[in-house]
């Protein structure tokens, strides 16, 4: 029986993976088809996450809220539901989520769309103050052709948006087909048993891992920098007790007038990510892995914002900082890596004709037993780079330079990873939005390791702020230098 459940469980995971492949392969925008900024998952009837194609960690812990939001509407099996409202199951507006009922639960796709109709092309503005400035807000809505047409009409490049949404729908029809086949072959009740077992298995593994951590109360604190230059503090208290743990963000700054705010779903995702790294990195992705983890954040704070707060950068930047503070708290109990670049370096270029969005990798912090890798996403993202050739075929942009930022890593017994230098020349007038962090203080080392170098943004050689919006003309060159990772341990003699 156990082998059979294992086989069905693997089949469920491969359905989630195949959904992801269908979405990527039939999508139209570079952000989905080349960078794979999307996730797909299967849930059971109780709304528990059972299997996920592991693309993007920030999507991992946040999808259950989307299913809960749709489940409340009691959807029928032949319906597809759409949402992006961060205060009703979403994360930030560009992440559009589709939910369908399946024979044994729910199928979910989430994709980061290159534009959702904000004032700034790309819908990742450096400065926004209210949610409705960041694009079209979609509460859970039943999706049909009419709704789809109306939605994409309010966004830039509606044809590309429609193509990407159809790609999401394609993944859902694949899930329905594959699940029907699986149930026909194995019997629905066995498939359901396997779902229970997948959830329970991950939970058992993570509980066992947590119980090996020392019990106690540990604290962490760090800041994010708002576009107006003010610093917002994140505080966390970690309590480890037996095979469970709690992360309480009491004392964190209240929600602010900018867009670094997070809905609680994003905060949870970041916490789950750290637990997964430290407790059991190889646990199969299911909601069970997070059953022993409780996340609390005061309502109305930066990490549990209330409507109508702006949230565009919370999902990408504040989430990176949550990872840093949670690692910092854990660091007093167990060995943790030095800080990685701590930002996704969000770069958006666009006008009424095109929108292009990318995030840029940097240095990973060194680990107690290994150097930090260079030129990778370090925390809540894992998107690929857009191949230069694919980028230039599709957009009026030219990549002038893409290389390692040698020397940016923090030294140590184990050195951090190097950041990246990326230069893009724009070939027609467009708007630039740059949203980055770690531009003044570099990622910190651990156990005596040196910090990595902070990042820099430049326009035609002149330094820009960490978060900035600008109008660009043909020939302008944007250069992003991403932070290096911190080193681990004191530099040994001879270094």
């Amino acid at each position, binding site marked *: 029986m156990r082998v059979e459940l294992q086989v069905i469980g693997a089949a469920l995971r491969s359905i989630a993976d195949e959904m992801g492949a269908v979405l990527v392969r039939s999508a139209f925008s570079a952000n989905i088809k080349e960078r794979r900024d999307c996730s797909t998952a299967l849930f059971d009837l109780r709304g528990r996450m059972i299997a996920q194609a592991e693309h993007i960690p920030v999507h991992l812990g946040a999808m259950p809220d989307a299913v809960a939001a749709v489940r409340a509407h009691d959807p029928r099996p032949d319906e597809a539901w759409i949402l992006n409202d961060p205060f009703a199951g979403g994360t930030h507006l560009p992440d559009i989520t589709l939910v369908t009922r399946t024979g044994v639960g729910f199928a979910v796709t989430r994709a980061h769309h290159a534009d959702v109709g904000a004032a700034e092309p790309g819908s990742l503005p450096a400065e926004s103050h209210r949610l409705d400035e960041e694009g079209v807000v979609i509460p859970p809505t039943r999706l049909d052709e009419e709704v789809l047409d109306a939605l994409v009409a309010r966004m830039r490049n509606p044809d590309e948006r429609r193509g990407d949404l159809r790609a999401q729908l394609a993944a859902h029809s*694949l899930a329905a087909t594959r699940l029907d086949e699986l149930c026909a072959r194995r019997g629905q009740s066995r498939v359901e048993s396997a779902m229970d077992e997948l959830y329970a298995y991950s939970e058992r593994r993570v509980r066992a891992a947590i119980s090996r951590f020392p019990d106690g109360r540990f604290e962490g604190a760090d800041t994010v920098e708002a576009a107006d230059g003010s610093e917002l503090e994140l505080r966390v208290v970690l309590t480890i007790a037996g095979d469970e743990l709690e992360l309480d963000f009491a004392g964190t700054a209240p929600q602010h007038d900018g867009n670094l705010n997070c809905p609680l779903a994003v905060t949870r995702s970041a916490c789950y990510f750290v637990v997964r790294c430290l407790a059991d990195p190889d646990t199969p992705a299911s909601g069970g892995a997070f059953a022993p983890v409780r996340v609390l954040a005061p309502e109305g704070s930066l990490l549990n914002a209330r409507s109508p707060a702006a949230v565009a950068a919370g999902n990408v930047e504040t989430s990176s900082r949550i990872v840093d503070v949670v690692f910092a708290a854990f660091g007093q109990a167990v060995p943790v890596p030095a800080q990685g670049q701590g930002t996704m370096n969000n770069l958006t270029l666009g006008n009424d004709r095109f929108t292009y969005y990318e995030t*840029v*990798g940097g240095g990973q912090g060194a*680990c107690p037993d290994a150097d*930090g*890798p260079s030129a990778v996403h370090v925390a809540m993202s894992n998107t690929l780079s857009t191949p230069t050739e694919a980028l*230039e075929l599709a957009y009026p942009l030219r990549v002038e*330079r*893409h290389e390692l930022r040698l020397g940016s890593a923090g030294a140590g017994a184990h050195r951090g990873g190097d950041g990246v230098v990326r230069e893009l020349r724009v070939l027609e007038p467009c708007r630039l939005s740059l949203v980055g962090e770690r531009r003044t203080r570099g990622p910190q080392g651990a156990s005596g390791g040196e910090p990595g170098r902070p990042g820099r943004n430049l326009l035609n050689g002149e330094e820009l702020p960490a978060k900035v919006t600008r109008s660009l003309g043909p020939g302008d060159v944007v250069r992003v230098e991403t932070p290096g990772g911190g080193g681990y341990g004191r530099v040994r003699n001879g270094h």
Partner: protein
Amino acid sequence: MAILGVDVGGTFTDAVLLAEGELRTAKVPTATRQEESVLAAAAAVGAGEVGRFTHGTTVATNALLERKGARTAFVATDGFEHLLHLRRQDRAHLYRLCAAHAEPLVPLERCHGVRERIGPARVIASLELDSLPDLGDDVESVAVCLLFAFRDASHERAVALELRRRLPGVRVVASHEVSPELREYERASTTAIDAYLGPAVSRYLEALAVATGGAGLPEPLVMRSSGGLATLAEAAAHPAVALVSGPAAGVVGAARVARAVGVENAISLDMGGTSTDVCLISGGEAGRSSEREVGGLPLRLPMVDLQTVGAGGGSIVWHDAGGALRVGPESAGADPGPACYGRGGERPTVTDANLLLGRLPPRLAGGLELDVAAAERAFGGIDPAEAVEVVNAEMLRALRLVSVERGHDPREHALVAFGGAGPLHACALAEELGIETVLVPDTAGVLSAIGLAAADERRDSVRSYVCALEDAGELPAEGEAELRYRGQSFELSVPLQPDLAEAFHRAHAARYGYADRDRAIELVAVRTAELRPGPALQLPAGRPLEETGPKRIELEGATCWLPPGWVGVRDGTSSTLRLTRQSRDRAESVK
């Protein structure tokens, strides 16, 4: 006319000769000069008048996995010289933050830029050949990958020409020659692999041509990774196309053997001296793919869809810095070989472990006396059973990947075990996966050579278009078109036919659930293949046999280990041993 298949492995060279309904096989140790092994193996089967001579080699695979290729430099467009080190920016493991990717084949200090730039539509900056730096005296091979060379290869051609002028005798490979397709990182990686393997493989193939010509054999056809056959010149020019040639031949052989006993769904397990390959066979056909990782590096070429593990019979057993027992990827090879071969090997190998566990006879079928005392000395305090467990765990990962993790239930498949060491490990692996049936061909030791002898002659060609379908002009009558909606990045293969557009819409609807007849369709490439079916294969039946484990069954060129709880039957009508678990309970108690 007789048919000759010779497969050079890292440890042994196998030959089969099919002449007038008779099968002759031979296995000789692979010598340092492998062309000599080919001749020796051909002579051992008495090859005389040969009509068709097919050849497979794992030389390239082993050189890559063991990182014993050429000292290679890399030249890219200035500003992009770190291409091989930047990869695609994703990390090696989502939650193991410091997990390392495979080290690039070219270290940073040998990665160089040349000033030039081609864009999607035109040359943006002309080529400045004098910006090409001195690559150093010790470079043996150079890979060149310039942006957009898949569309306009003029700069790449000029750089390659200049490098060949400056560095006579150094191999130079340009990306458009190997993989003329969009996406610079994957193309660069494929080119670097080709350059890295080039000197060793082409030296070998050139020497082979001389040697076999001298022996009166026809020029060999070389197995490509795709399962089709290439001319020797084609393979020598770009060894990357033959990177998994030997393993591909093994899969072809496994599929033939399984089909002969009525099994259409199987997993092939080919464990040789240095590496192990597994492949899913569905409906009698090996899975195919157009891109895979080899040794952690992307390779974009048409291939049989198999997974390779850098561990085989000759793999060295060792303790890592953390004290964990490890097996491979370093191999004792054929020379000195495992310690028990008595040729001066002092380090313990998987073969030594099998000998110490009584799973290998003291004298191999080929006549080699095994030195138990030498194996014991090599193992020192290490438990050989633990070494076997470690190597089995490595192979299980690959077996799960091609089956369970792709949604195929291994229990609905047979395991076809071959290669010198496959039949020693197969039953233990089958038990772990719940597989009830293991097929071991009598020719297990030479199955890749059987696959070579039986392989279809197939020449694939591809023509790149990347234009609107209606502007493509006349297309060949037969073959496959790679089509997509304009704006997509991935194609669907549609057989060439009169109304190609409608066929694509239908294929898209079938695959993705919708068609958009208002969207423009782009023709990316047309693939055509010239196919000549290989000869029918009638293998002589073996003598009837029924054995109960624990038992060692000696085959020609391989030994099969039947653990307790297993029975092995050969019914006298076929040339394949069928191993089955006697009872589940018994098998459970063995574990």
